[in-house]
């Protein structure tokens, strides 16, 4: 069993806080969730939350959330602390533990110590996982020159049990060195597309036996900061990539629905008479799907930017890290990043992000953007059909109005010119002696003949107009 000095376990947790489109209520919830890890429910009052919130107000991309205190130490019987910071839109929390402050602890074997330390760390996060990801770091100092660091690193990873039933051939993803410290990267990426972002990652950092405490402290002073950034970029890339894949899946589902919708188009084009109600339903469905598709594309584009920016930041940060090994010489630092025995293992993730995440999402975005065109065409075609149908209906209405107008005019003209003569005609047919009031039948006939005559005249006028307008339409 490996023996090492100062075995420490660190957990780095990341929560997206004030991203785009987050409501005030959601901000409050995520703030409470973050600080609950440190203060639990009991100590986290509204007043305390308001006080903590005030430290967030800074233009800086890196804000130490405990102000000048910087750290919140564990209780007196434990060696450990919290270090909360805010990186842009994300909360980051480093939880460190080196075990218990008692003599019995020192006598425990390494594996037991690490297992118990991990348990303490998790208890100190209230078992609230990182929203967009989390990473483990184990660091320790070797006790003698002939110790096999690979075996020690494997022992550390086994003890932590973050990667269940680890297979070293696959799970030991990389190893290298930085300022003489030996680094081992164990990783098992989440391959289940469920949004849980369950990536398992352990970095083991072993210092050579000849390092003094001061040298270790100086190394970690800078390395911790670099890791806080590197893990942030890394988690954001993986989180955005997983969500992008989920969005891509939804866009594929939308495409299936789009296909169903556009298949109905030839039926409408060929139909002799249109079911306007059905057309309206299909148009509203198409608009609904179009909205979903466009919104999904918007999210995909956002994630594309997120991956692009964070991939660039990751590459810049590992270059800065490598420069520490080369007296700030950028050219030699790049060589170090290409060296698999040095910091090449860190570049491996950068390459993966560039090629698999960024490259893939870029291609997907372009391909899926094209999927919207058939739906746009369908919507335009249906709108066109509706317009034609509307114009058709309007024309029919206009002809009806014209025929009715002519009919009414003709009837009015007949009534006005005939009513005066109607009494004389009736007098001729049914004469009434002088100084005798006309009988009721004469009055009835006078008005009746005027009414029937104007009605017939009006109908003839209307029919003639309808017939003529039909002829004009056909010609």
């Amino acid at each position, binding site marked *: 069993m490996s*023996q090492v000095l*100062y075995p*420490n376990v660190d957990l780095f947790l990341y929560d997206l806080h004030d*991203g*785009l489109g987050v409501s005030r209520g959601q901000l409050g919830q995520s703030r409470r969730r973050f600080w609950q890890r440190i203060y639990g429910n009991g100590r986290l009052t509204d007043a305390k939350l308001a006080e903590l919130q005030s430290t967030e107000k800074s233009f800086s*991309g*890196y804000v*130490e959330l405990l102000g000048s205190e910087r750290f919140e130490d564990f209780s*007196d019987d434990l*060696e*450990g*602390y919290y*270090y909360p910071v805010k990186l*842009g*839109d994300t909360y980051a929390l*480093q939880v*460190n533990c*080196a075990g218990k402050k*008692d003599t019995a602890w*020192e006598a425990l074997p390494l594996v037991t110590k690490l297992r118990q330390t991990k348990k303490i760390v998790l208890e100190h996060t209230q078992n609230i996982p990182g929203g967009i990801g989390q990473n483990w770091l184990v660091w320790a*100092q*070797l*006790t*003698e*020159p*002939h*110790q096999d660091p690979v075996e020690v690193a494997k022992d550390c990873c086994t003890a932590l049990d973050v990667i269940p039933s680890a297979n070293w051939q696959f799970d030991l993803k990389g190893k290298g060195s930085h300022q003489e410290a030996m680094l081992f990267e164990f990783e098992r990426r989440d391959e289940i597309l469920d*949004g849980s972002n369950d990536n398992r990652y352990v970095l083991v950092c072993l210092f050579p*036996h000849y390092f003094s405490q001061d040298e270790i*402290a100086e190394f*970690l*002073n*800078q390395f*911790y*900061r670099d890791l806080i*950034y590197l893990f942030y970029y890394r988690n954001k890339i993986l*989180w955005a990539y997983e*969500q992008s894949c*989920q*969005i891509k899946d*939804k866009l594929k*589902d*939308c495409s299936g*629905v789009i296909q*169903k*919708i556009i298949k109905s188009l030839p039926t409408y084009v060929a139909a002799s008479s249109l079911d306007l109600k059905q057309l309206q*339903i299909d148009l509203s*469905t198409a608009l609904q*799907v179009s909205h*979903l598709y466009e*919104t999904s594309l918007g*999210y995909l584009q*956002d*994630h594309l*930017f997120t991956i692009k*920016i*964070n991939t*660039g*930041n990751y590459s*810049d940060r590992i270059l800065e890290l490598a420069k520490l090994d080369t007296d700030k010489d950028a050219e030699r630092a790049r060589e170090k990043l290409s060296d698999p025995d040095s910091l090449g293992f860190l570049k491996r993730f950068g390459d993966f992000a560039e090629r698999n995440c960024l490259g893939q999402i870029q291609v997907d975005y372009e391909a899926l953007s094209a999927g919207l065109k058939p739906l746009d065409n369908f919507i335009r075609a249906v709108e066109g059909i509706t317009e034609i149908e509307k114009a058709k209906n309007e024309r029919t209405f206009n002809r009806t109005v014209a025929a009715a107008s002519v009919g009414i005019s003709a009837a009015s003209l007949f009534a006005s010119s005939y009513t005066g003569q109607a009494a004389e005609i009736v007098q001729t047919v049914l004469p009434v002696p002088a100084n005798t009031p006309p009988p009721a039948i004469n009055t009835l006939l006078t008005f009746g003949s005027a009414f029937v005559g104007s009605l017939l005249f009006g109908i003839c006028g209307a029919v003639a107009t309808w017939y003529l307008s039909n002829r004009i339409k056909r010609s």
Partner: protein
Amino acid sequence: MTDNETQILRAFFYALFQQQTALPSAVTAKMAEIAQTLNTRVAELDTLAMATPSLEGPYEYAFDWLVNGPGGAAERSMSGWARPGEIDKVEPSGRQNVARDASDYLQEIDQVLPMISKKLDYPAQVLTASDPVEAIHQDTEG
């Protein structure tokens, strides 16, 4: 034997206990020589441990631990001395990016899309149902 000598001896034994491979013969010979007159030469064990690479680390750690005691001075603390340094204001923090979480939207689309799809499949579902009359009634009632 003084207190300091006792601590040296205990730390030396701890360092020996930590060894997994044999010590160089010169070191074991020197140890045997010191052991002849141990009471007067304990301090030499300190020199020997500090001069032997495999003993140096655990010896120094154990001696420090024995002298300062558990939970003693900050120097002995197991993690207190190794923490993230204060951020350098000129240190590049990278380009800032404000991400948009799609998880709520993904849940929403999970519910809406099947409903739309079902609406489109409705005629086929009714016509292919074992009892089309019941199917159409069910949908109307639902």
